[in-house]
């Protein structure tokens, strides 16, 4: 039996060097992933705090917990933190950074120093953003619509925009690194068709990062210039068009949601195939669907502007294109399901989260189709229907995928197993809490409750209370992993190289891996997800 403190004798990336300088000046992609893990977890809890304040305020119709102005700041800051400082970097910067070089058989990413720089840039952006928040916050919504943000708001718009501008560069650097790594650093024999789908998904997300982020960077810069210098290209009083801001903003911010979800889909692909012990059904389709989502995702942005004043002809075009972008996502859902069909399913925690993802992402995605339908959108735009839609895909989808990935690769990252019982309980709490929080919001939105209002008509109270109750359950579901993951670092069972019997280069290294990943560059001769030919004797967990 393993004792509580069983240290791994051989050299790995964690024990190769001690001291704070060895972490803050590291160029090892695995250590940088851990730096990101700490930062992103902190930002998640800050964003979650704002969410808690929102839900508490909405317990009563008069919403008197905070003033209306403070409420505006709460949802703005919740959105900014969760979108820019949690969701966008989460899977790529934490899991992708760690696992992608291992998956392609490389010793590191293409540009290790740029990788470290991306973390420092992220931290700088986070510090600027948090400073703007503690010194008064911003109340424009994470969407910064003009001319309110440029002219009329009395809050720290420039500071908040600057924080996001800086964090955007972190995203661009990560994207550049991933694209170049996947093109140039693959081991011999690792052809594009043998690449794990996690790599395909992160590659597609990286394409979006690189193509889209610069546009929001320039847009926020223009907002700051307009606000600071009065140079107005978005202010109608100065001859400008506020819709131009929205076009430029959403040109990035819509593809941004695919930056958020694609890496999560990559995680699900890895988990579904492993825990069904079957090759992914339609590998090429899933790989190409990732690219299709990335490309089509750039063609649909004005569906956020249907009622803003764009021409109805443009609205028709964007509505049709928005239907199109659902197709590759649906292809992935069908393929995951087909992978599971006649597979040998194991219900470990990562797979539970994957089930949750598939169901909840599908619901969120389908409600997206409703929103893409002009006639429906006229009624539910700016209501809780939209809020529920994007929380289903982002929280029910993406955050579940992030949790799934953390649990799946935790043994590889730390060399320890997490406690399975507690993990399953947490997954259940997350699922129940999530649905209790957000399903009522579909109903509320359909019944007409507007979003971003601190108060509401009394007939909506029951559903709001239910939603807040769900949020508290959800919070517990997120707190528990914090505790048991930390616990596992010291007391968790030592993990073998391949606790899940998965196929993939990362599972051929020790847990945790040595600093240089591979003693010799691997030569890949097998197809992706070759579960049929996997050797029988593999070390399994705990037996």
């Amino acid at each position: 039996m393993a004792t509580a403190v069983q240290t791994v004798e051989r050299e790995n990336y964690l024990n190769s060097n001690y001291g704070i300088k060895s972490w803050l000046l590291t160029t090892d992609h695995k250590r940088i992933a851990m730096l990101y893990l700490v930062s992103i977890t902190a930002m998640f809890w800050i964003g979650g705090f704002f969410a808690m304040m929102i839900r508490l305020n909405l317990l009563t119709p008069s919403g008197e917990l905070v003033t209306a102005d403070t409420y505006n700041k709460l949802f703005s800051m919740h959105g900014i933190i969760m979108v820019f400082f949690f969701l966008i970097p989460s899977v790529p910067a934490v899991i992708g950074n760690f696992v992608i070089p291992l998956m392609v058989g490389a010793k590191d990413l293409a540009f290790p120093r740029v990788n470290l720089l991306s973390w420092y840039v992220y931290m700088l952006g986070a510090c600027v953003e948090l400073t703007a928040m503690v010194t008064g916050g911003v109340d424009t919504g994470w969407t910064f619509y003009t001319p309110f943000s440029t002219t009329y708001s009395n809050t720290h718009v420039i500071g908040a925009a600057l924080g996001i501008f800086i964090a955007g560069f972190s995203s661009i650097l990560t994207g550049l690194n991933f694209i170049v790594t996947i093109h140039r650093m693959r081991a011999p024999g690792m052809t594009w068709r043998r690449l794990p789908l996690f790599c395909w998904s992160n590659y597609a997300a990286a394409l979006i990062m690189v193509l889209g982020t610069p546009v929001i960077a320039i847009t926020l810069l223009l907002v700051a210039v307009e606000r600071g210098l009065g140079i107005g290209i978005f202010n109608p009083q100065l001859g400008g068009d506020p819709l131009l801001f929205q076009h430029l903003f959403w040109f990035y911010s819509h593809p941004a949601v695919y930056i958020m979800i694609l890496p999560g889909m990559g995680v699900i692909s890895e988990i579904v195939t492993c825990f069904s012990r079957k090759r992914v059904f339609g590998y090429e389709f899933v790989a190409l669907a990732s690219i299709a989502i990335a490309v089509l995702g750039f063609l649909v942005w004005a569906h956020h502007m249907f009622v803003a004043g764009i021409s109805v002809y443009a609205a028709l075009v964007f509505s049709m294109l928005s239907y199109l972008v659902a197709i590759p996502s649906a292809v992935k859902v069908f393929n995951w399901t087909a992978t599971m069909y006649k597979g040998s399913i194991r219900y470990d925690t990562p797979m539970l989260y994957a089930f949750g993802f598939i169901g909840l992402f599908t619901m969120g995605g389908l409600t997206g189709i409703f929103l893409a339908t002009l006639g429906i959108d006229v009624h539910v735009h700016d209501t809780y229907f939209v809020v529920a839609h994007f929380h289903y895909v982002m929280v029910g989808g993406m955050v579940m995928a992030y949790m799934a990935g953390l649990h799946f690769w935790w043994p590889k990252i730390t060399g320890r197993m997490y406690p399975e019982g507690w993990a399953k309980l947490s997954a259940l709490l997350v699922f129940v809490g999530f649905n209790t929080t957000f399903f009522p919001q579909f109903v509320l939105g359909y019944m007409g409750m507007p979003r971003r209002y601190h108060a509401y008509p009394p007939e909506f109270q029951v559903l709001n209370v239910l939603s807040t109750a769900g949020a508290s359950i959800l919070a517990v579901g997120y707190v528990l992993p914090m505790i048991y993951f930390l616990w596992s670092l010291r007391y968790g069972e030592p993990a073998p190289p391949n606790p899940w019997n998965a196929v993939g280069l990362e599972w051929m290294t020790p847990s945790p891996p040595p600093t240089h990943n591979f003693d010799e560059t691997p030569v890949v001769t097998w197809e992706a997800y070759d579960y049929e030919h996997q050797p029988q004797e593999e070390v399994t967990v705990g037996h």
Partner: protein
Amino acid sequence: MATSDIQIAEHALQHHFADMEQQRETASFGMWAFLLTEVMFFGGMFCAYLVYRAAYYQAFVQGSQRMDLLAGAVNTAVLICSSLTMALAVRAAKMGKSKTVVTFLLITILFAFAFLVIKGFEYHGHWVDHQFPGPNFHFEPLKGPAVDPLHTEIFFSLYWVMTGLHALHVIVGIMLITWLVTVILRGRVSAHYYNPVDTVGLYWHFVDLVWIYLFPLFYLISKQHGS
């Protein structure tokens, strides 16, 4: 000397690359991918320009007629010359002629400064003529019908921000080339390892490229229209 050329390359080889060829291709690909992000960064502004030029054409014509065409044309030529010297610097680096590389790089810096000086004079002129957007903005057309001054103000907003952002990139370019000169003087570059020269060169040519488009869009809208 050939041996130390190779030693320089070996010293520069990073541990995660199989060979210098992979490192060189990776560095070049990485810089091109970065330039793609720069295209989209400026692209947002080109989009704004397109929208407003389509809507306020006459105002744009009149604003353009107040641009200092000679300064703009000379600056275009200056940047083209700087691109030549940069390309020749890269060429010399491939041939291992470090002294020549440094010479060409220093001339490139001189051209870059010349660009900034001319731009500075232009900006000063616009400022003195109240052509900076804001409460002090004031515009009289040289010829043609009166247009809404707000529309001309938008033209100048775009002018100041787009050329200003470009000038910032020129300044960054000067810093990068200066750094490059120090790297070469320290003997870190050879015919077998000239990645830094290559990548900085790519960046500098991109700066030239952006101006190649900014020039006609702001200075050459029309000398004939609006009369």
